[in-house]
């Protein structure tokens, strides 16, 4: 995994501090051209991984990349599935079972029959496989070396005790997409226990890691200890705590924890992207120098 991954929150009007800012961002990025411009700026800065939700609009970004293979050679997506609001709204409208039926691909008779059978046998594995395949369809022909399960789903399933779901997810993305499974969570220490019990070894786990302790269930100290001592590949998100922390201070905290492999960040301007890259490079160098 690269050191820096570009996240997609700003593109879809997600901001954990200000709804006005979120609205302004949603306006700015209502055209996919604006999204692609930012991806291009990031690419010019050497950031060639886009960690994005499987929002339907990403499909157009994928089309653009497929249409320009030379420009995007070596570019990779880390899909994060599913785009939860889609499911949330479907469940409200159609009920639990109705939503599930709607989300299963019905274009192919085969999978509809398979899906019907799977529902009848109460076996979640084929249902999960079909849901994953439906979310992955937009990335066909593009590199997706890591596929993440979104935090709302991870933490929901973990809470319910669906341990098998993590093993099934991991197996399917490995076998079908040759990808490494990733898991996003707000409950890092607990998830590592759960994944261990599910038999998912050395998992890639993306969690909020910031100096404020914002959305780090179990607390900052436990997170620091967990990162330093447990067997997993940490990806830090929400490092700026949605802008509540100044950039240098925020990144110093994350860069000082040497086991953190990657940092995912959202940015929408060249200046911000460059500043983040330069700061991380500088702070990483400082850490290495101290270590040496």
């Amino acid at each position, binding site marked *: 995994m690269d050191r820096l991954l570009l996240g997609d929150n700003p593109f*879809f*009007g*997600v*901001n*954990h*501090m*200000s*709804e006005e800012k*979120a609205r302004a961002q*949603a306006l700015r990025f209502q055209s996919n051209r604006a999204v692609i411009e930012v991806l291009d700026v990031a690419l010019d800065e050497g950031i060639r991984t886009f960690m994005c939700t499987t929002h339907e609009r990403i499909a157009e970004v994928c089309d653009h990349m497929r249409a320009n293979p030379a420009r995007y050679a070596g570019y990779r997506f880390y899909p994060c599935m599913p785009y939860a*609001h889609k499911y*949330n*709204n479907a*469940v*409200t*409208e*159609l*009920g*639990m*079972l*109705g939503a599930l039926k709607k989300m299963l691909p019905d274009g192919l008779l085969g999978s509809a029959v398979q899906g019907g059978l799977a*529902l009848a046998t*109460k076996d*979640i594995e084929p249902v999960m496989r079909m849901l994953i395949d439906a979310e992955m369809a937009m990335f066909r022909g593009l590199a997706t070396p890591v596929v993440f399960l979104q935090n*709302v789903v991870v*933490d*929901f*399933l*973990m*809470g*319910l*005790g*669906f341990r*098998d*779901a993590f093993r099934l997810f991991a197996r399917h993305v490995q076998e079908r997409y040759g990808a490494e499974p990733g898991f996003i969570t*707000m*409950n890092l220490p*607990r998830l590592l226990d759960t994944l261990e019990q599910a038999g998912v070894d050395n998992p890639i786990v993306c969690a909020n890691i910031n100096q*404020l*302790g*914002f*959305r*780090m*269930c179990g*607390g900052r100290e436990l997170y620091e200890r967990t990162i330093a001592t447990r067997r997993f590949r940490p990806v830090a998100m929400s490092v700026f*705590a*949605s802008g*509540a922390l100044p950039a240098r201070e925020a990144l110093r905290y994350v860069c000082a924890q040497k086991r953190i492999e990657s940092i995912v960040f959202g940015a929408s301007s060249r200046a911000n992207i460059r500043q983040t890259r330069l700061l991380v490079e500088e702070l990483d160098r400082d850490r290495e120098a101290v270590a040496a």
Partner: protein
Amino acid sequence: MVKIGVIGLGKMGLSHLSIVKTHPDVKVVGVCDATGYVLDVMAKYTGLAPFGDYRALLDGAKPDAVLIATPSRSHGEIARAALERGVHVFVEKPFCLSLEEAHELVALARRKQAVNQVGYHYRFIAAFQEARRVLRAGTIGEVHNYRVEAYGPVVLRPRGSTWRSQKSEGGGCLYDYASHAVNLSNWLFGVPAGIGGAVVHSVFSSGVDDEVYATLYHANGVSGQLCINWSDETQRKMSMRVEAWGSKGKLNADRQECQVHVRGEGWSVRYTTDLTPPVRYYVRGEEFSAQIDHFVDRVAGRSSEEVNDFASALETDLVLEMLERDAALGARTTVVGAAPELPAGKASLRETLARWIAGKPALRLR
């Protein structure tokens, strides 16, 4: 250990189950749903004891407390059965669809000394808790008018096949969505003594309403406006916003921030990142975890603070009923005389109006 049963495994029931099942002081002794599929999958993969009937759960699993998240119309019946057995009750919003039933349950819970709570989670959002603190501290002086708005993308097409699209089941924006805003408004500004100018429209739905607007009148002269629309596709999810104008300043709050303007001093802002206390287990917003943990604390006797008890939910139901009644009255200040039906938005509107005014030079109001 608190033994808990979860009744209703729809979106909210599963969400509550996910949070409560991770609680170190809770044992989930049974889950209940009318849909066999969800129940069977839960039993198969999580080992929870499944019940197809809530009475069987109450009598078979003998929980200390239940979380009820069934379609709104059945809240009253199930809550009553639980309370009669001395079981503590957390029930999803809206509380009841009839005031009579709500009154009975408030009395029954009191008689049984049972912990009772309704799932109005906005009272657990830190920025709104901060807004309440600011209002109570008198930072913006005496409030004379306020506005509570909630917009979201729930119903964007004329379809839907669940209980949510049926009025008799508690569907519709007023009971299913505006109830959150009313509950928050009551908590911040008190229960209004009257309602005027209520408008309840359907935008896409056929059997139920999609938007609600009204003026709230308080006995002390304070007024407020309520603007609720769940057919607003410009929102990513439900967005609740509160504004209050006081004798010394102004307050704006939404789930992310609480902005306070004090005359002569200017703005100060506090953000959710700084206001929100950490939760034990996070699934989809701190407020959902906080409300469940509060309920468990109450049942375990660790907290005596009433938040969202049945009595306060009854006050919310009361305002919802006032809104419904007022909306049925239509306009109350009208032009005297037989005004023609004006075809709204049509090209002939100006013409029609001009003709009408020409024929009735002395406009009077009543």
